[in-house]
């Protein structure tokens, strides 16, 4: 009888705190994984915003420079005035193309830096954070209809960046959506983090 009493009363009494601790611990681990995932996603979104806003600013600036170039370009194509403008036209074209290449290189560097930052941010709290994102931004050059120079950029393929984390046998996933219309229009680029299907 005493043994039965001890086992029936004692077992829940002593096991309950252990069990409760394990439950809280598991909940805390899941919460930590979710926070790591969200932080990584936020970093991804920030870098995407930085890249697309940078390119949008570049496109606007390039448009202004290209307008100035068009006058010189037209002058250089006119046989009567070509001798006065052709050197300047070539110099301007070289500068504009160099600026375009520079903007592309900066965009790639920011993109890759963002990828590294997202992984690092996620791994502060959880070692199993993985980021699924192309290594380079999906860009396409647009040539100017008047001078034929590939000066502008637009987004080629709209892909969602993904962050994943595995906690126990559960996989949590976030999608990072860039929000914006076009690199040529006036809308600002932003981002939105969305819970994936596996998140509980």
């Amino acid at each position, binding site marked *: 009888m005493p043994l039965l*009493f001890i086992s*029936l*009363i004692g077992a*829940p*009494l002593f096991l*309950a705190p252990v*069990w*409760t601790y394990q*439950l*809280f611990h598991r*909940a805390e681990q*899941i*919460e930590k994984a*979710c926070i790591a995932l*969200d932080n990584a996603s*936020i970093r991804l979104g*920030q870098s995407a915003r930085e890249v697309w806003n940078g390119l949008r600013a570049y496109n606007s600036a390039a448009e202004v420079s290209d307008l100035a170039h068009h006058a010189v370009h037209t002058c250089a194509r006119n046989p009567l005035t070509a001798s006065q403008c052709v050197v300047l036209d070539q110099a301007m074209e070289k500068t504009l193309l160099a600026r375009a290449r520079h903007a592309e290189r900066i965009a790639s560097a920011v993109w890759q830096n963002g990828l590294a930052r997202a992984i690092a941010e996620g791994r502060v709290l959880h070692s199993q954070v993985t980021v699924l994102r192309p290594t380079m931004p999906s860009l396409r050059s647009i040539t100017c209809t008047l001078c034929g120079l590939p000066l502008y950029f637009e987004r080629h393929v709209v892909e969602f960046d993904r962050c994943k984390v595995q906690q126990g046998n559960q996989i949590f996933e976030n999608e990072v959506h860039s929000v914006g219309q076009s690199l040529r229009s006036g809308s600002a680029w932003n981002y*939105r*983090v*969305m*819970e994936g299907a596996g998140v*509980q």
Partner: protein
Amino acid sequence: MLEGSAVARIANSRGALLVEGTIALGVFCTALFANLELVRRAYFEVLLHHGAFLGVRAAVLEAEPRASVRRFWVKALGESHGERFLKSAELDLIPFSRGVLYRAHLEFPTWLNFSVPGGTKHSFEVTRKCRFFLSR
């Protein structure tokens, strides 16, 4: 042959044993019930704690907080139990200056009502809050 006094002694001791046994069984059952109730409440606290976290996370990510909490509770307790738990709990989303606060609140009925300053206590309340600061 037993004498009358010996018979009475045996009957008395059996009666005493019965009374003691009944009391012991009552204490035993009450203690067991109380233990299991504590375990159940601890489990509910975990549900509230994690529910508040999921609610605030869903709110920050512009999802539906209540649906997120419901999904978790239904998964943890089963369809009917989870729905009942959702009905008995109060869930509030409280916006504040730098983010959102999500509050999950549950009232447990007490077996005995008792007076406290300010009125009679009919229930114990458990509230779990979770905040999400949008620091970046």
